């Protein structure tokens, strides 16, 4: 994947990139947010703009970068990879390759390049957050692992109910 892209194809250890004493810049957060939005566009699984779940995403990024082991190094690396790919291929083509045409299985092999780190440590986790927080609904579900909805009182079913089917 992206063998000809100098930054992206740089070899690395599979270990989490160090980041405990770094902070993300506003620009890096913006690049990552655009990646998160692209997930909804590519899979057409979000009814409204992803901005409705931006607070969930920001809380996730905060938890992953402010608590050890920090993912700040991974997020910074992913932002740099995205910058290189978008500059070279354009935004749509870059996301198309990163999200659909990477050829990487799940679970993935150990990531040994910068772009593989971005895929394994950032993109894959963003996808899980995006599906849990909203994307699953486009597959007719009312509830999904990680979705927080409803109240503690069970007056209204929080999942699709069998009532009516079984009378």
């Amino acid at each position: 994947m992206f063998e000809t892209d100098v930054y992206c194809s740089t070899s690395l250890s599979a270990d989490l990139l160090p980041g405990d004493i770094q902070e993300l810049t506003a620009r890096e957060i913006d690049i990552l947010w655009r990646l998160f939005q692209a997930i909804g566009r590519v899979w057409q699984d979000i009814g409204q703009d992803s901005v409705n779940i931006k607070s969930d995403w920001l809380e996730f990024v905060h938890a992953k970068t402010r608590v050890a082991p920090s993912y700040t190094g991974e997020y910074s690396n992913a932002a740099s990879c995205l910058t290189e790919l978008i500059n070279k291929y354009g935004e749509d083509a870059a996301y198309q390759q990163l999200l659909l045409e990477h050829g990487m299985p799940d679970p993935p092999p150990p990531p040994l390049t910068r772009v593989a780190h971005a895929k394994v440590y950032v993109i894959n986790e963003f996808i899980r957050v995006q599906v849990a927080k909203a994307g699953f609904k486009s597959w007719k579900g009312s509830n999904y692992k990680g979705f927080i909805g409803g109240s503690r009182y069970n007056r209204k079913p929080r999942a699709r109910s069998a009532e009516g089917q079984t009378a």
Partner: protein
Amino acid sequence: MKIREFDYVFVGSGVAASTVAKTILESNRLASILILDAGPKVPAQDRRAWWDYLVRDRRPYDYCYDQKGENQSVGQTEWSFDDGRVSMYGGSTVHWGGWCLRFKPEDFEVFSRTKEGADWPISYNTLEPYYGRAEEYLSVCGDDSEGWTARTTPYPRPPFPWTAADGEMIAAFKELGIKPGKLPIARYRKCMTTGTCKYCPFGARFSGQIALEELLTDGRHLNLEVVHNAPVSQINAESKKRIESVEYLDALTGERYTVRANTIIVCAGSYETPKLLQTSKSVYWENGIGNDFDLVGRFISSHPFLIVRGSLAHNTEEWFQEYDFPTLMSRTYDSPELQEDGGKIFLFKDRTQPNVDIASLMIQGKTRAQIDAIVEGGRTQELQAFMDDRGHHDNRVSAGRGLNRFGLPQTQIDFSRPPEFQQVVNRRLDLMEKVILAMGYKVEKKTIRTQSGHHMTSTCRMAKTPDQGVVDENLRVFGTDNLYVCSNAVFPTGSAVNPTLTLTAMSMRLGDYLNSGAA
């Protein structure tokens, strides 16, 4: 060796210890209580840990499960230690599902009815008021009209409704004369149905850790203390009847302590409790405390876990099980008739099927159209069951080779099923298969899982006389004045359902007994 003194010392910090301690403190808020747990403290309700569980499927307490090579299975029947229990502050309540079913009256009369296992020295009616209290405490969401057992109090919360994916199995149940029911499930605090029950971000599922932390921060309980990373190695007797103290290591400081207490309560589960009694030898108890009749650790009982899986070639409704717990169950075959026929079963629909991991397909790079085709292209459903177990004298837990990571003796399980066991299992699997076939599904799998100790009981069983068991009906170790066991270990036999509600009820009953002064 440093010496400390308390009114009560508990070994273990799960549902039993936390419930007995709470019951004592409600009667005497200044009671001095020390609770010791060999395992570490893993933070509860930690947001980062929860996110990591969601996106990496990694629970923060995974390292507290038994690991390969730490224990030994030496019987004829393979025994799995995988994911069976959690050694940490809060015990296995940290990973339990919250399923809260009462035992049925016949579960207390197993020997009388089957000439196997043992009768309980108490009856369902003795425990019934405590079941109601336990349901209130754990905030069980259940169906008052279920009618499986006689009850004098309603459930404190309404049940979770059946999911759409339950519908086909409900119809099959009805066709076969099986009464469908809603699973009674404990939701201690605000449940937001996140589906991440194994590490709830809100503490909605009861855990001993959360219960004890609330008691500790309450401000009224000035003499309550919990020490984690504190394996107990020995219980000391000062005479045959009088138990003087326990010895523990504070693994974080390396210091050893002797704790003297008026009352000592071992709540360390069905593995550790018998091992601690066996290894606590003295001139008064040459074979270990409570072990004069060589019964400590014997009669291991644990649910056989039966499954029948079926598949359907389409899923146009795009169903998946939307909770992380089952909503459909039945106790029709949890009956005296099947008990007398070799084993009764508690039926429930698998909590994870039907399911498609949509996020994983996206991670693999599948397009929207490809994912739609997979989601609609078929589904599986699985009917599962626990079967009751009676316990056999030769099946035993004892200390294995050396110590584990937490400073406790490794575990050796000597467990064998009798030859006729498989015939009973096959008959029960046939009953379950009929359900899958009635749903119009193709049977894909029909089997019993490797035996494990998720719901292990009976290793220090309760009895009327010391030649039949280890503790009396008040959970006091026979022959002692002040040593108690409160654990699934005291159940004379298991039943077909999960044990935790019954243990909670037993813990409240023990708390009342200690508060009454009769001890």
